[in-house]
């Protein structure tokens, strides 16, 4: 059973212009997406730069205004209530931001950064708070004296860990992790990914894992959605997406991932060029007259793909 459902969520940013600075157009950053979240599972959100991944994360935790759609949390409609700062929803859903560096206040010590959600949501005595901070630093593998330091005194991987410590401070149910490792080196990335998996197992956490790296997403997530221009082109289990991709955009994305074996690369290149050619020739069929991705239709119980113009109904 899912604890949270998102129905047909939309975020449209107005574009202003003209002499009156009136709204002349909209950016359809998120344009009708639906998702469900179950306890202890990791959901991947993948797509190219600017397709609306971060906006999706931000609108769920209430940092962007919802244009249309609905969010239900444990049976309660929280669509409009998520600005109540002390609500259970706000405590249970936390976010790790894409840019660890700018999301940590440079003038605050690490202990105050981590304490922020604790002070907002948990009623702790100063002594309990202190203990909690120690505990959190230990969980993310940072030395105790880190709490007196400022963010700039840490490496990228360490900053990311501070962001994680803050995100898990209130024992959340779901963490929205926006590109948590894309700025990191391979081995630091591996350290952070291992750690995120560990705490997931230990605390039954769910993740919405946002990334443009399909390798990382495959490693972390059971369920994956591929996003393009604010909409999902395909969503399904890891197996559905990687072994049985249906949408032309998903296929092209998969064919572009560099393989980590030099063997067979010439064949892969030929294949890649064929896929690209096929994509350029057929891509129009996959979008409606407004260049919008069609609605999803089921392929199987877990697997959904956007329809094409020649197809009315399902597969």
């Amino acid at each position, binding site marked *: 059973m899912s604890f949270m459902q998102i129905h047909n969520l939309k975020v449209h940013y107005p574009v202003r212009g003209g002499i009156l600075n009136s709204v002349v157009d909209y950016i359809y950053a998120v344009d009708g997406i639906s998702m469900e979240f179950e306890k202890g599972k990791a959901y991947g959100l993948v797509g190219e730069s600017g397709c609306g991944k971060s906006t999706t994360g931000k609108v769920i935790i209430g940092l962007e205004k919802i244009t249309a759609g609905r969010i239900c949390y444990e049976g309660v409609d929280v669509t409009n209530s998520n600005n109540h700062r002390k609500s259970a929803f706000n405590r249970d859903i936390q976010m790790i931001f894409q840019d660890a560096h700018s999301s940590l206040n440079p003038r605050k010590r690490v202990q105050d950064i981590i304490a922020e959600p604790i002070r907002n949501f948990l009623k702790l005595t100063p002594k309990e708070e202190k203990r909690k901070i120690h505990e959190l630093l230990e969980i993310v593998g940072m030395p105790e004296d880190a709490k007196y330091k400022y963010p700039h005194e840490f490496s990228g991987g360490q900053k990311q860990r501070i962001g994680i410590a803050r995100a898990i401070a209130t024992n959340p149910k779901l963490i929205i992790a926006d590109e948590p490792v894309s700025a990191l080196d391979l081995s630091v990335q591996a350290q952070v990914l291992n750690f995120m998996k560990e705490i997931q197992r230990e605390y039954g956490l769910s993740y919405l894992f946002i990334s443009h790296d399909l390798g990382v997403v495959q490693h972390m997530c059971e369920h994956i959605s591929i996003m393009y221009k604010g909409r999902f082109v395909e969503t399904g289990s890891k197996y559905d997406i990687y072994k049985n991709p249906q949408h032309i955009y998903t296929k092209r994305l998969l064919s572009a991932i560099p393989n*980590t074996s030099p063997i067979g690369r010439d064949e892969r290149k030929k294949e890649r060029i064929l896929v690209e050619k096929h994509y350029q020739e057929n891509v129009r069929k996959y979008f409606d007259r407004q260049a919008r991705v069609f609605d999803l239709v089921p392929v199987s119980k877990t697997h959904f793909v956007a329809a094409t113009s020649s197809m009315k109904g399902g597969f």
Partner: protein
Amino acid sequence: MDVLLEIKELHTGFRMNDTFYNAVDGVSLSLRKNEILAIVGESGCGKSTLATSIMGLFDQRTTRIQGEILYQQKNLAALTEEQLNEVRGLEISMIFQDPLSALNPLMRVGDQIEEGLIYHTDLSKEERKQRVLTLLQQVGIQDPKHVARQFPHQLSGGMRQRIMIAIAICCKPKIIIADEPTTALDVTIQAQILDLLVELQKETGAGIILITHDLGVVAEVADRVVVMYAGEIVEEAPIKELFLHPQHPYTRSLFHSIPQMNKKSDRLNVIEGIVPSLIHLPRSGCRFADRIPWIPQEAHEENPQLHEISPGHFVRCTCWKSFYFNTRKGERYV
């Protein structure tokens, strides 16, 4: 073999508090004609410093370069700025990681490509304009006439990177140094740019030094690989040899850090820790030993050297022979 560029015992140091700290510390390597040589390693290991040293783009007041960079019997490290200008762009060119900061924001991209042609060729204005359009077409730009008149900020990241490549290849250089040319790009554009580089290289026979930390990119295009750690080469091998038989603990840990596409295991076997900063680098003995403390001290050479363990495959030190991974639970893992 046709060696294009040979680097011997290169040391590049930066001045901090009146002391020079070497970011590249005794690197020797050669680049051949028609070859893509990949240089991999973590952030801060000295990849860009190496590239920038070859191009001679450092401020000599704060940087010290020792050793030889041999190109056509000339030591680039000893040339004057004017002599270097003859070589740069014409014979050796560079593609930078961040095209936005490398391009001039106030100049139309067509004019920026033309600059190299004005400086290095005797072409007439008409011929140059024509050549710019051909170059844009070559790097896969659909509407060259229109794009040539755009300013950098009007183009997408992938387009800007193509402009950088057009500038880099405009004089058919013998050597191209590409410093993380696709790191900022989406995978589909990355694949197109890499394919393009390989195509262009086949045409001109240039040697390419490709700097990256993405082993996937390396596997797709490189012929030979150099792995750097903390300013030194720790392993060097032909592509298949390196991917099939990586030996140095650092190289192996890199491979285990890749969240690989078809791998079952849940945990990535990574060696904890990070590259030490320049000032804190151990300058003698083994630089990696601190990160693998479970390997006994005797396993390391006192003065780790590169050894050729099979033709063209070099590994620093001997500790790799007794190396195994140690998981957090204390299990051994080979």
